[in-house]
């Protein structure tokens, strides 16, 4: 029983990682209705920026917020410069550009920072809270920050005119233009936000898995699974999905099929959700009446 509990707790810790990346994915989807394959690499790159700032002597929190700001700007620039020209094209051209971006960011990060793993500092105390051995303080802190991000996002989308406009622009760009929303900028803003959230995710993930250019490679697939499970248009669902995937992966890996087939679990989960319940657990199914 204790072993089981330990697996669940450590699954929650990993789930927190998936949740934060899944959240960024959901974010871009909210703003653009696209699933960004390069999301993981963008987060990784942001984390390197934070690492450079901290190494240049900046205090942690200053670096933290500056990185978020830089990432936000970076996301906007990427949308304006790289995504924009192909946006009107086919889905395929968008996917191809995403893949190109993924490859470029990964290679450039390796080129600048080398592939050796780097420790990344945590803002949380090293001592575990409540004397438990399975969830570190950082793990808990990261989960708390993720939840805070979800809450503020929820509030932003729910209560601010800008948030509402972003949702409208993603959902029905033509109508959004008719009410005077600058749809192009909303998308760019969505990318900025997603990049900023990705940066937070990266900075929360890196102390756990260490910083290296391939840091997100393994995480991205699970984050996809989490986002889809929770519902690709639901930030809250993404977080819950992340925890479910984290725990499920541990339990299935430990008790059912062994650790060698964990990726297959993610594969089955992705395809299963897409087929059985494409809107995910918390996604909204739109009832249309004409």
């Amino acid at each position, binding site marked *: 029983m204790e072993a089981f509990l330990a697996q669940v707790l450590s699954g929650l810790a990993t789930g927190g990682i998936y949740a934060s990346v899944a959240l960024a994915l959901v974010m871009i989807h909210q703003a653009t209705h696209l699933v960004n394959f390069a999301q993981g690499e963008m987060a990784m790159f942001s984390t390197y920026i934070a690492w450079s700032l901290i190494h240049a002597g900046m205090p942690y929190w200053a670096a933290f917020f500056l990185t978020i700001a830089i990432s936000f700007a970076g996301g906007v620039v990427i949308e304006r410069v790289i995504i924009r020209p192909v946006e009107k094209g086919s889905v395929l051209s968008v996917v191809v550009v995403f893949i190109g971006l993924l490859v470029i960011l990964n290679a450039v990060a390796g080129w600048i920072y080398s592939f050796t793993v780097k420790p990344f500092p945590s803002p949380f105390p090293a001592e575990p809270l409540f004397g438990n051995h399975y969830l570190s303080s950082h793990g808990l802190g990261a989960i708390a920050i993720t939840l805070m991000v979800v809450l503020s996002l929820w509030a932003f989308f729910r209560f601010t*005119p800008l948030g509402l406009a972003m949702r409208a622009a993603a959902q*029905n760009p*033509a*109508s959004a233009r*008719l*009410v*005077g*929303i600058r749809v192009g900028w909303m998308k760019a803003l969505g990318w900025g936000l997603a990049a900023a959230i990705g940066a937070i995710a990266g900075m929360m993930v890196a102390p756990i898995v260490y910083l290296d250019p391939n840091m997100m490679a393994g995480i991205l697939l699970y984050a996809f699974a989490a986002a889809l499970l929770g519902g690709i248009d639901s930030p809250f669902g993404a977080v819950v999905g992340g925890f479910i995937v984290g725990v499920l992966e541990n339990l299935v890996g430990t008790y059912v099929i062994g650790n060698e087939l964990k990726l297959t679990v993610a594969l089955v989960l992705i395809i299963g959700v897409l087929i059985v319940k494409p809107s995910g657990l918390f996604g*909204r199914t739109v*009832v249309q009446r004409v």
Partner: protein
Amino acid sequence: MAELLRVEGLEAGYGPVPVLHGIDLALEEGGIATLLGANGAGKTTTLRAVCGMVKTRGAIRFRGEGIEKRSTEDIARMGIAHVPDGRGTFTDLSTEENLRLGGYVRADRAAVAQSMEQMYAYFPKLAERRRQQAGTLSGGEQQMLAVARALMSKPRLLLLDEPSFGLAPLIVAGIFEILRTINREERVAILLVEQNAAMALDLADHAFLLETGRIVMSGPAARMREDETVRRSYLGY
């Protein structure tokens, strides 16, 4: 009465297919004009052209200013509200959120809230459905929502594309009644595209008849109603 909208030599189309071949029309402040014509005559395209949703040639002047090169967003911000065919409802959002979006371009929050109450007064049905997801509203309610959303921006000109489409006659009558009230009380000019020519001519004070992308006849609504061709082709008696 000052001129609100003037269109001269307007040509437009989709890709290589031209739809409009040089349209001229004008609308006065606070006036109501209707575009009549068969399916495919170019009525919807004319409305889209006015708010920059299709590529155009020719001049479009709104309150004396050329807007033919402006983006849809800018045109909306200048005071032209368009209720497109299919109503353009934000189906995933609630009724209230749809209305809030209508007032998106207005800076004065208090005034927006006031407008919202006013809309609920015009359309009490919408007040009941305030929190409901707009996609789940009935067709008539969605049409009301579309009109209300357009009015939320306090437009000078309302472009209405087939507001009666797919609705029961009783509901259509209700909507037209409200349009009349709004026109009177808010001094909003209306450019109306409508299949139901009888109702349109009833509401409008001026009418244009479109055939294959050209205006073939125009004049005061009352006179158009008397015209033989119009009567036979569009009024059906």
